[in-house]
């Protein structure tokens, strides 16, 4: 008995020394599903629906990657992560993609061993206050108690902004959007600060959203993106081009509804995106119809935005910066060619 357990321990050691598979794509294919990290619950971005399905903007990008790989958007396992947990989960290989309104910063890109695969939402940090507080501008917030989520760029921007404007503040550091809601509504803090989209999302869950305003000052640049581990370029490319394909699809007018009608379209741009010409699928290690599967199952960028955050959602956010470059925004995806 004792010898067998010793043998088992030795075998385990040998197992540990074997190198992990170098290709994330192979791992994902072998496993049969994508592991995707999302937020613990933020209306519009990632929230389990009444039926237990994850829905939201960030969720849809995971589904898009799954659709590109498996031709099936349901082959995703979602892992809800707090701000604190998110990077470790990705570094350790627990998840393959992090799609969790995470800001692209130089430190994160350089020091955390991460690779930002692109920006899917251009945001900026704002302040949410009760109208009853009588504050019109963030510059009137001297001495306020501010709720802020731990482990975020928000926490640093907040400190920078108040320091830069010679104002004092007291921070109440909480760990999830839900805690923020509890503390803010109990008036344990005067102000809640996070990305403007997150503020709007949280406000939509209040009993009386109209009693709260988002102050006009946007104090930072927050490009929110999809993140993968550093070092697996093929996987990074796959995620990056899934996002690009969705933006390109919107530009070309392809939607989940009409993509079938473009089967015989003569436009070379459309033919390349839909896998009729070129070997783009092969280049990223997928089926030729990868982009078509994304559009068919999940939709183009605009559809995903409208459905979760925009005009078809309870949040009704403006496209703003996140409109196509041709429509006054800054979305400008590199071409598929």
């Amino acid at each position, binding site marked *: 008995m004792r010898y067998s357990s010793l043998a088992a*321990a030795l075998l385990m*050691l040998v197992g*540990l*020394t074997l190198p992990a598979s170098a290709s994330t794509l192979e791992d994902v294919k072998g496993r049969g599903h994508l592991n995707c990290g999302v937020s613990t619950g933020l209306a519009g971005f990632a929230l389990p629906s009444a039926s237990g399905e994850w829905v939201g903007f960030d969720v849809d990008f995971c589904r898009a990657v799954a659709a590109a790989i498996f031709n099936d958007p349901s082959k995703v396992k979602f892992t809800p992560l707090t*701000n*604190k947990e998110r*990077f*470790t989960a990705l*570094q350790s290989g627990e998840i393959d993609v992090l799609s969790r309104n995470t800001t692209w910063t130089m*430190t*994160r890109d*350089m*020091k*955390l*061993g991460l690779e930002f695969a692109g920006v899917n939402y251009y945001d900026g940090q704002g302040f949410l206050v009760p109208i009853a507080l009588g504050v019109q501008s963030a510059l009137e*917030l*001297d*001495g*306020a*108690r501010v709720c802020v989520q*731990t*482990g*975020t760029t928000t*926490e*640093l921007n*907040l*400190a*920078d902004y108040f*320091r830069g404007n010679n104002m004092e*503040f*007291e*921070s*109440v*550091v*909480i*760990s999830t959007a839900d*805690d923020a809601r*509890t*503390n803010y509504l*109990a*008036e*344990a*803090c*005067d102000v809640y600060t996070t990305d403007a989209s997150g503020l709007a999302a949280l406000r939509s869950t209040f009993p009386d959203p109209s009693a709260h305003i988002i102050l006009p000052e946007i104090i930072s640049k927050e490009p929110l993106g999809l993140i993968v*581990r*550093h*070092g697996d370029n093929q996987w990074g490319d796959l995620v990056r081009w899934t996002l690009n394909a969705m933006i390109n699809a919107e530009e070309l007018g392809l939607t989940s509804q009409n993509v079938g009608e473009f089967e015989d379209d003569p436009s070379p741009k459309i033919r390349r995106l839909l896998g009729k010409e070129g070997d783009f699928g092969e280049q990223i290690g997928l089926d030729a119809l990868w982009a078509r599967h994304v559009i068919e199952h999940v939709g183009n960028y605009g559809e995903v935005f409208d459905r979760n955050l925009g005009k078809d959602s309870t949040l009704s956010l403006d496209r703003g910066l996140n409109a196509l470059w041709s429509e006054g925004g800054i979305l400008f995806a590199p071409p598929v060619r």
Partner: protein
Amino acid sequence: MPPQTSFQTKRSWRDLLFDARVRGWAAQVLTLAVLAYVVFFLASNAATNMRALGISSGFGFLGQEASFDISMTLVDYDLTDTHAKVFLVGALNTLLVSVLGILAATALGILIGIGRLSDNWLVAKLSLAYVEVFRNLPLLFQILFWYGLVLLWPKVRDSIAIGNSVFINNRGIEIPRLVFEEGSGLVGGALLIGLIVAYGVRRWAHRLHDQEGKTVPGLPLVMIAIAVGLPLLVALVLQFPWSYDLPVRKGFNYKGGISIPTSLVALWFSLTVYTGAFIAEIVRSGIAAVAPGQSEAAASLGLRSGMTMRLVVLPQALRVIVPPLISQYLNLTKNSSLAVAIGYPDLVNVFSGTSLNQTGQAIEVILMTMAFYLAISLTISLGMNIYNTRVAMKGGAPR
């Protein structure tokens, strides 16, 4: 002769193989070698993988500016301070809530533990109910529950005011801060001298009692009179050389004074009632472990029940109580890391939370945090073990 020697050598080799001591040593050396290899393997594996992924390592980040705010600090801290300072701030906050919790939980535990053994039916049953409820609910749940209740306290503009110096709202309890002025050092000195003199009087009284059998009437009162009276007299002469910095409502919040955040109150309270329930059981079992004959004997010698408890039962009960009490103190200290759930800025929250996230150096940060908790736990253990050897049964017949 030579053949015999070789025969002996052969035998001694076989003896070595079947010698229990040798085999025992060999097994231990082998285990140690395997353990060392596992540790080395894990460390080198982590280092290689981190290098491959381009994750930076080392302790250089400790010198970088933290640039984030901490809501409660016992030492001066501002946004330009370093992550090393964050470690200090977090560690002090952890120590604060742990020490407060240990003191309160011990007092509460002793009270409830004795209450469990009370002859009064109501007191005994209430104590039992308390123990069973708080010992059997998860601590995290209790912390969230008490914090939820604290959030229902009045909002800042409807603060409960006690006089014009203490204000209570769901953000914190605002109390006045003592500001020492010139001459307050003399009062402090007088307090120190008073305490020393009082201690001297106590020793003198005890010696008198031991040698001549006389008791000094009202000894505790005399001691208090000396320890408090002397500094009071000096303060009176110097016309109270201190003032109060009162909290004042200004803008969004109260300014001035000391603000005790509600997260500290809720955490301290939950740790106290939770650990207090365990300590109550330890105290009860400790007292129950003292043979009833002991108190009967004490009673027949004419000791009153209070004296019986203090002089006969408790000293013997402590031998049973102290060892498990150590574990409870360690648990309380470690449980204080649940602070993160309600935003109390303890070490785990600010250092292995925010600092870890802003620098991304998980391994270093977690190692430092582990080292801190280990050091604290070992210190508590050491202190309590020293105390335990003092109260433990000394060998031989009872003297």
